[in-house]
């Protein structure tokens, strides 16, 4: 007989779920009758559609089931019982509970870190009263229609002033300009302080509180300065100071017009003092560049726009301003836009930030990683709970016979999940406290921007998070158990199809191990790159060179003292340290090709720099000593410069003596050096670089040291420094340390990936262990019989572990090629000078994972294989 067409099952279930029991039967009957009729009239497909539509249309106030009060009452009464039985179950299955709690706790600790980060980000700049109305003006620079996609957090002073003076619709513009600071002297005390130039809008836009002084006028007059409490305390030991005078860099005197409360930690800008912006109007009155439209690298502008609907008009005004001012600078287009204050910490990664930010990429990557880890742990819990059903389904059956409804069984298992997750929370808060410093140390910007303090708010979020996670992880086991039919379970245990989902669980184990393997292999690959970059041949020698920051001291004074030390082999001067991510550019022109000008990278050095660093000269000579007063006439270029200007790189000696214009000054090429790595080792090497002789520009002394006892030498140098400059602390680092520091980001990602890999392998191992324990225990009788019949322990172990080793094999086959492909195609092409992939990393990770899993599987199967078969079979 042909089966009669049926309405969709889910629609029926939906109807049964929402409809009042008293109405249900009639309604179902009616819909069935109509369905049969529609089948005849329109065909089955359409009839099913109509059925679904009718089911939805029948959702009316009078048909919807009221939540039963009795049911609710039972739930509240039963909660005590749920907790008690859950507690008993947890204690009875110590191993499973232990695995679950540990697994959840480890992965939850990452979740806690994420919550901490998110809470911190959300609390940023919350102390500003008008936080929702504050926007920062950002700028994008385009030259000759070329735009490198970089958006600046800074804008030009010109634009900021124009917005302040000519725009409407705002309630204040705060303008901050960098580079105010130096050695502040008052009376006998001299301390270095730094801060910004700021206009009086500073205190109308932001809610920085003045404890002394008038916020409306404090930053108005030229040569006024506002100090933070902390700075005032450093200078005078007290927080009163208005009316006093400070001298900056032994030059100008400023009057203190305000003392400001210290800035809260979670502020995106930090400073120790502010000077009135009008001062610059006096100091820079004859500097044309100060108010140039394209001088957009030094000033931050914040506007307070109370009315969000005025934003569009404001943006139009900004566009109009750009259109008008672009004409003042040829070939240049600068577009301005607004960025809400709340998006600064975790928004797009802009350049020229006023302080360290995290950026949305960090937040996204971190959130995704957390999601993966938590999902994995949640699956484990679900997995293990269902795997235990052999033991627990009888309990559920009896509950159902006594009268428990589906919802009661669900409640029971949800409570169990939540209890377990709360227990894990205790453990993971401990882990959180342990991990926090390591986590923050991973990156500079994180250490500076995040606090992750255990505040009540944070703990509150943690508890919410734990409950949500527990409920989520407990939900699927709860549904599974709620479906159990009491009669079936009590009559015959094997009727429960526990093994129905065994393929899924196997797939899960493969998935978890594959992820772990990918992470481990990836970490090892990046670590190899990191080591490679540290050891990379930069084209010059960095060994035993100590770079001392001059911090405004006269180079020759320090140099003279240093040269008297016996360990010092040589000292040179330079304006910057190359190859660690510092760049300084200037323009270069061939007077014979006047239309062709290029940006070249630059360093100012003295005559000792070349020999000290073992730079290779292909042709020509090194600089020779000239007094500071001498006119600059000579330049040394690298091969790439010759290529860039088509000067014949094959024969470098031919260009010697050629005059080039560098920064507008005609200079003679006196030497050609071999290309070296001006940028970091992972950047492209073909940069055009010129070295100019200008010892007066020196910011660093490069000291070559030959010493048996480096710490002692360092200490002696520090003592020397103290004598010369008592104000600033001695700041010196070895070149190799600088290089290591410049790859801090990479080493941070190694640490992060390594940590996540550790988590993943931990979770995967626990999942595997649970699975192994489960299968071996359920096969205990079989194993015992085999043993009685004469199987040896090793055969039994092989029998039990074979399946799992296969799973691991599949995971390895999937994960390792995938990781190699990913790095080969995606990651490494983005890193210049990377080293080739080798098989070693994959082998190492596979071996370590196999070893770990092998120990676990081995231990458990060994334990089962060793059990006395008589004991097992007797009790059956």
């Amino acid at each position, binding site marked *: 007989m042909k089966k009669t067409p049926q309405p969709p099952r889910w629609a029926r279930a939906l109807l049964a779920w929402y409809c009042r029991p008293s109405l249900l039967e009639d309604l179902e009957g009616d*819909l069935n009758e109509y369905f049969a009729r529609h089948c005849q009239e329109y065909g089955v497909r359409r009839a099913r559609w109509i059925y679904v539509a009718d089911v939805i249309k029948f959702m009316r106030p*009078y048909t919807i089931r009221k939540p039963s009060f009795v049911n609710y009452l039972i739930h509240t009464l039963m909660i005590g019982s749920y907790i008690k039985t859950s507690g008993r179950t947890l204690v009875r299955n110590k191993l499973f509970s232990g695995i679950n709690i540990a697994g959840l706790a480890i992965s939850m600790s990452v979740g806690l870190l994420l919550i901490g980060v998110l809470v911190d980000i959300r609390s940023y700049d919350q102390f500003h009263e008008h936080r929702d109305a504050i926007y920062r003006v950002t700028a994008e620079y385009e030259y000759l229609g070329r735009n490198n996609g970089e958006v600046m957090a800074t804008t030009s002073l010109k634009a900021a002033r124009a917005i302040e003076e000519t725009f409407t619709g705002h309630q204040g513009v705060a303008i901050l300009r960098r580079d105010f600071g130096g050695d502040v002297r008052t009376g006998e005390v001299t301390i270095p302080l730094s801060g910004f130039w700021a206009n009086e809008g500073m205190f109308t836009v932001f809610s920085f509180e003045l404890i002394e002084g008038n916020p409306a006028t404090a930053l108005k007059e030229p040569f006024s300065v506002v100090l933070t409490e902390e700075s005032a305390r450093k200078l005078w030991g007290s927080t009163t100071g208005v009316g006093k005078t400070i001298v900056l860099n032994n030059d100008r005197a400023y009057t203190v017009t305000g003392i400001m409360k210290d800035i809260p930690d979670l502020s995106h800008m930090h400073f120790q003092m502010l000077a009135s912006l009008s001062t610059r109007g006096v100091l820079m009155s004859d500097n044309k560049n100060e108010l140039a439209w394209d001088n957009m690298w030094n000033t931050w502008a914040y506007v307070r726009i109370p009315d969000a609907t005025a934003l569009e008009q404001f943006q139009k005004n900004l566009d109009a301003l750009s259109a008008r001012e672009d004409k003042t600078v040829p070939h240049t287009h600068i577009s301005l836009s607004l960025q809400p204050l709340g998006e600064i910490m975790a928004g797009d990664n802009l350049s020229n930030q006023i302080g360290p930010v995290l950026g949305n990429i960090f937040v996204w990557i971190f959130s995704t990683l957390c999601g993966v880890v938590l999902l994995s742990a949640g699956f484990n819990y679900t997995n293990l709970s269902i795997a235990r059903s052999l033991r627990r389904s009888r309990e559920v059956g009896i509950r159902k016979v006594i009268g428990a409804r589906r919802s009661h069984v669900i409640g029971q298992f949800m409570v169990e999940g939540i209890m377990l997750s709360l227990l894990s929370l205790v453990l993971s808060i401990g882990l959180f406290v342990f991990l926090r410093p390591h986590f923050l140390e991973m990156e500079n910007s994180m250490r500076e921007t995040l606090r992750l303090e255990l505040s009540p708010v944070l703990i509150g979020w943690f508890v919410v998070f734990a409950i949500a996670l527990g409920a989520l992880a407990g939900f699927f086991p709860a549904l599974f158990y709620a479906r159990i039919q009491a009669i079936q379970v009590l009559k015959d245990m094997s009727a429960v199809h526990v093994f129905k989902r065994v393929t899924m669980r196997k797939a899960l184990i493969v998935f978890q191990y594959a992820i772990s393997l990918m992470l481990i292999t990836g970490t090892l690959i990046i670590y190899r790159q990191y080591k490679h970059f540290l050891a990379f041949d930069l084209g010059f020698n960095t060994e035993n060179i100590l770079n001392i920051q001059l911090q405004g001291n006269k180079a020759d004074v320090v140099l003279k003292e240093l040269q008297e030390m016996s360990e010092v082999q040589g000292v040179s001067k330079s304006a910057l340290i190359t190859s660690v991510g510092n760049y300084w550019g200037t323009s270069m022109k061939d007077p014979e090709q006047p239309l062709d000008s290029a940006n070249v990278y630059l360093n100012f050095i003295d005559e000792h720099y070349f020999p000290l660093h073992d730079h290779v000269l292909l042709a020509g000579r090194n600089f020779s000593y000239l007094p500071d007063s001498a006119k600059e006439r000579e330049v040394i270029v690298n091969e790439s410069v010759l290529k860039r200007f088509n000067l014949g790189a094959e024969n470098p000696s031919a260009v010697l003596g050629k005059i080039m214009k560098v920064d507008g000054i005609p200079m003679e090429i006196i030497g050609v050096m071999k290309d070296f790595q001006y940028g970091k080792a992972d950047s492209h090497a073909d940069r055009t670089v010129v070295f100019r002789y200008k010892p007066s520009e020196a910011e660093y002394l490069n000291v070559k040291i030959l010493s048996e006892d480096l710490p002692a030498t360092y200490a002696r140098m520090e003592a020397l420094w103290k004598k010369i400059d008592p104000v600033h602390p001695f700041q010196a680092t070895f070149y190799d340390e600088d290089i290591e520091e410049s790859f801090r980001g990479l080493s941070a990602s190694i640490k992060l990936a390594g940590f996540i890999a550790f988590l993943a392998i931990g979770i995967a191992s626990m999942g595997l262990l649970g699975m192994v324990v489960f299968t071996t225990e359920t096969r205990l009788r079989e194993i015992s019989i085999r043993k009685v019949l004469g199987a040896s322990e090793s055969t039994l172990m092989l029998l039990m572990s074979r399946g799992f080793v296969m799973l691991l094999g599949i995971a390895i086959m999937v994960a390792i090629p995938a990781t190699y492909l990913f790095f080969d195609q995606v990651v490494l092409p983005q890193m210049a000078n990377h080293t080739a992939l080798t098989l070693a990393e994959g082998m190492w990770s596979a071996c370590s994972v196999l070893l770990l899993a092998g120990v676990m599987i081995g231990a458990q199967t060994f334990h089962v294989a060793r059990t006395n078969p008589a004991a097992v079979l007797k009790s059956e």
Partner: protein
Amino acid sequence: MKGTNLGEFEELVLLTIAALVNDAYSVAICDELARHTGRSVKLGVVHAVLNRLEEKGFIRSKLGEATQVRGGKRKRYYSVTSSGKAALIQAKEVRDQLWSLIPGLSVKFSG
């Protein structure tokens, strides 16, 4: 008692139930109504009205037999209560009275 007066559609449904005598269940009521009024009658609307009439005490219901076409679900048969009858009669009287006040129309009809 709130809302004991009959709406237009309620009256129609009530009349149909009375007319169908022992065969008044939701689908039959729908069909009957559709046949007499000539407009398509939605099951959902009829259900809602039946529910409301029962609440007002104009009809009562009992479960009847199950049939194959209903997937083994029983029908719910409705019958008009005495207060339902009273409401119907009252509604008719009101109309009749109003009709009698319109001389032209009544002449036209009678003629």
